[in-house]
């Protein structure tokens, strides 16, 4: 698999099958015909067209778009309130070609904000719509379980709706709180046991609460309960100016070394919104630093996964942290920071690689030279270990159809054999000029996901090596790290954009709507971990507790990004 994918003949066959696909992209008129008179209006977004449909025909339209037009990926659901209406936007994509995008815009009246749920069409809508209900206050008919997801059950009001008064204290009577010391209650003939795994538990990698029903050692039912780390990131971004005040926040979503990858998500969306062209030199620097972050993030993922399976802070974990440490040293040289990099700027990067340049490149090269040997050590310790294989092969199985329906992306999708990588399929930065491969594994199990991460580290190393070569030979007078960007950005009012990049855990998307001021009117984060975590019940129901823990580890979630 190289950058030439997808194979041309394959593309032709699919183009013939799917409505609205022409040789040079999407034909929105043909799609509009498919939707027919259910289409109320057509909007122009920066990334795609928006089809406005009636709130009671959402399922119908989405079914047609999925089955006839091939939109099999519901990337994100954005909800927002205008002065005169509420709006849900379903951002649709295709796993085969994510550049083919379509937004389905569903307005609903202010006095009764409700529309049909997309849950029967895309399983991933379950959590996304719960979040929309929780934060904005839109009700979704036909949703199986419309409860709050990020905020406490007892929260009053919807914080991103316009009439929400943040000053008003949240008064919750004691009676309404769930009693943590409540007596165990069970049905008379039940032989299952309810266990709270988390929010404080050694294997939850943060504050995740998994309500688990056990049948002996096996998981009969489980439900992840998230929101313990909700820090109002979207709200905070809406209060910052585009130019400088938003960029530090992405570092704090997936805070496991993936900072620059996250920053790029915001940079890409905002640059498309304000029509900023990034100089080529800066694009190469971005590509290099982002892949360094990916190595660090994947190393920690492999380490913590090993920790979950092995069970102690053992050799594999420490070796992984050592590898990450070396990448962090390089990143520290480059950005001045070890965790919260804040290195990208709209239109470029903060500064050039540090002087003396040779020293920096040599350090990076040294690391890359040692990397194959170190990765081999991981294969010795982990993937070729017989007990490890006994534990991870064929456990936590996530079939590709389920993965698509739940909107899984990143190593989780690629471990299920879905050949989907935005770096190749929706190119940005300098990726399309470089020679590297997208890694997929067909096992669909915990082992495949581990293998994908370890192999992706090698691919990242290839990318960095080529970037270093390019940067080294770059003529001194052409080293342009920053485009000319106005001091204050005020994009045209009512411009909407949804852009995603391939972050460490998968597709990290940002939706921004501008209102003519220097701050976004709506800032929505599509977190890959949020969607990936939804697959946990599919992977672990019927499995043993240890396999459930291993599956959770193989999803590699970061609660900072799940809860935002």
């Amino acid at each position, binding site marked *: 698999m190289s950058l030439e994918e997808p194979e041309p003949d394959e593309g032709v066959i699919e183009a013939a099958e799917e409505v609205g696909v022409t040789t040079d992209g999407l034909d929105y008129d043909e799609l509009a015909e498919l939707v027919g008179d259910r289409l109320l209006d057509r909007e122009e977004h920066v990334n795609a067209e928006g089809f406005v449909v009636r709130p009671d025909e959402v399922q119908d339209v989405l079914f047609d778009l999925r089955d006839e037009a091939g939109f099999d990926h519901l990337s994100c659901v954005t909800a927002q309130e205008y002065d005169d209406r509420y709006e849900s936007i379903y951002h649709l994509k295709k796993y085969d070609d994510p550049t083919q995008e379509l937004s389905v815009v569903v307005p609903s009246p202010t006095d009764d904000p409700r529309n049909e749920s997309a849950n029967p069409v895309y399983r991933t809508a379950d959590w996304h719509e719960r979040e929309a209900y929780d934060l904005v206050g839109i009700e979704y008919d036909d949703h199986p379980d419309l409860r709050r997801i990020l905020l406490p059950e007892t929260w009053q009001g919807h914080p991103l709706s316009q009439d929400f008064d943040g000053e008003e204290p949240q008064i919750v009577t004691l009676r309404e709180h769930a009693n943590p010391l409540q007596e165990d209650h069970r049905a008379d003939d039940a032989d299952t046991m309810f*266990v709270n795994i988390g929010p404080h538990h*050694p294997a939850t990698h943060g504050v995740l609460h998994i309500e688990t029903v056990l049948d002996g050692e096996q998981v009969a039912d489980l439900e992840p309960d998230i929101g313990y780390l909700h820090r109002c990131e979207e709200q905070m971004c809406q209060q910052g100016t585009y130019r400088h005040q938003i960029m530090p926040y992405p570092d704090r979503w997936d805070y496991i070394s993936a900072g620059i990858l996250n920053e790029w998500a915001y940079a890409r969306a905002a640059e498309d919104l304000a029509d900023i062209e990034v100089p080529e030199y800066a694009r190469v620097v971005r590509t290099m630093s982002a892949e360094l972050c990916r190595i660090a993030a994947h190393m920690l993922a492999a380490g913590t996964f090993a920790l979950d*399976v092995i*069970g102690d802070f*053992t050799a594999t974990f420490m070796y992984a942290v050592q590898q990450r440490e070396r990448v962090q040293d390089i990143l520290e040289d480059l950005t001045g920071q070890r965790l919260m990099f804040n290195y990208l700027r709209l239109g470029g990067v903060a500064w050039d690689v540090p002087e003396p340049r040779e020293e920096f490149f040599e350090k990076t090269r040294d690391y890359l030279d040692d990397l194959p040997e170190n990765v081999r050590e991981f294969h010795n310790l982990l993937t070729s*270990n017989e007990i490890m294989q*006994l534990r991870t092969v064929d456990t936590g199985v996530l079939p590709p159809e389920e993965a698509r329906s739940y909107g899984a992306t990143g190593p989780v999708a690629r471990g299920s054999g879905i050949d989907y990588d935005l770096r190749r399929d929706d190119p940005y930065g300098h990726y399309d000029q470089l020679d590297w491969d997208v890694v997929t594994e067909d096992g669909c199990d915990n082992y495949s996901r581990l293998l994908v991460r370890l192999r992706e580290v090698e691919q990242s190393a290839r990318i960095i090596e080529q970037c270093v070569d390019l940067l080294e030979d770059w003529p001194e007078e052409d080293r342009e790290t920053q485009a000319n960007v106005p001091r204050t950005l005020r994009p045209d009012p009512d411009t909407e954009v949804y852009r995603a990049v391939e972050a460490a855990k998968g597709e990290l998307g940002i939706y921004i709507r501008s209102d003519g001021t220097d701050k976004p009117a709506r800032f929505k984060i599509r977190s890959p971990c949020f969607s990936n975590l939804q697959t946990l019940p599919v992977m672990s129901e019927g499995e043993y507790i*240890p*396999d459930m823990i291993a599956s959770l580890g193989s999803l590699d979630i970061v609660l900072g990004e799940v809860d935002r």
Partner: protein
Amino acid sequence: MSAVAPVAAPLQSAPLPGTIAELLGLDPDAPAVLFVLAFLAAGAVISVLMGMTAVLGIWGKRKITAAFTDRIAVNRHGPYGLLIIPADAVRLLSKELIVPAQVDRPAWDLAPLVIASSALLGFAVIPMGNGVQIADPETGLAFVFATASIASLGLVMAGYASNNKFSFLGGLRAVAQNLAYEIPLVLTGASVVIFTGTLQMSGVVEAQQAALVSLGPVDIPSWFAFVNPFAFVLFMVANLAEVGRNPFDIPEAPTEIVAGYQTEYSSVYFVLIYLGEFIHIFLGGAIVATLFLGGPSGPVLPGIVWFFAKMIAVYLFTQWARSAVPRLRIDQLIQIGWKGMLVLSFANLVLTAVIVGVIQA
């Protein structure tokens, strides 16, 4: 009292209380004297073991794990960080003892005592060389296995009485695991007894003193690890499961069930469980040393040094496994125990019996 009278090299003399009595000029056959002196001897052995646990469990464990994982570990508390031992002891003992609501007392209070004392009890019959052996009954080996198994009872008590679901799961896992591994362990031990013809620990040691083969000037002794390496490997694996270290640390499994049966224990009770675990590992090492590695025998150095060296070597092996090997799943462990180890240990027992029978005939 000693049935096997050593003539050439008196590795094993009379048990410790009798020796002390003779040294003090008291009558070694008077029950009252023996009773008191046995307490003294036991106290001495326990003190040594406690000291070992303090050094190896608090300081050594850190240093060993650090060596396996490329770290340094404690180095700021006195020379080589050794003062971490008193510091940790004070820290652990001065913590609040939290008794959760609705724990099942006194079972909850007794469990740590049972876990710690059962392991100590086993050392009563272990010959440590230079005459250090508190008692040498004819049923020595059976006694060791019996007392070591009492620990399982402690684990169930702890798991069941804690009123905590993680503890409960840990307790159940401990029972399932010990059932699956105790039988192969004892059966493999029994294959040694077929060689020695006696359960008495001093007899077992004595039977391993003859030279197996002579390579020039060096005699390879007939330690059972050399005579029957297959049984030795089986026993080492079963022993890992018995003491609950990777890949068999399933009853504790920190990433799955928090800390298993010890989740609710703090302060002194936690210390007792921790102590019990380490002494259990040492007891496992002592049994391996006695059954398979010739007990206290070895060249040049005194027997007791050899004995402790062998015991610590087995301890190092468990730490190595802990640092490097992934954990099995409980059902896989049960499968290996009942379908693999049990069959192999029976095969070993039958084969040994046949071979010994042929030789003797």
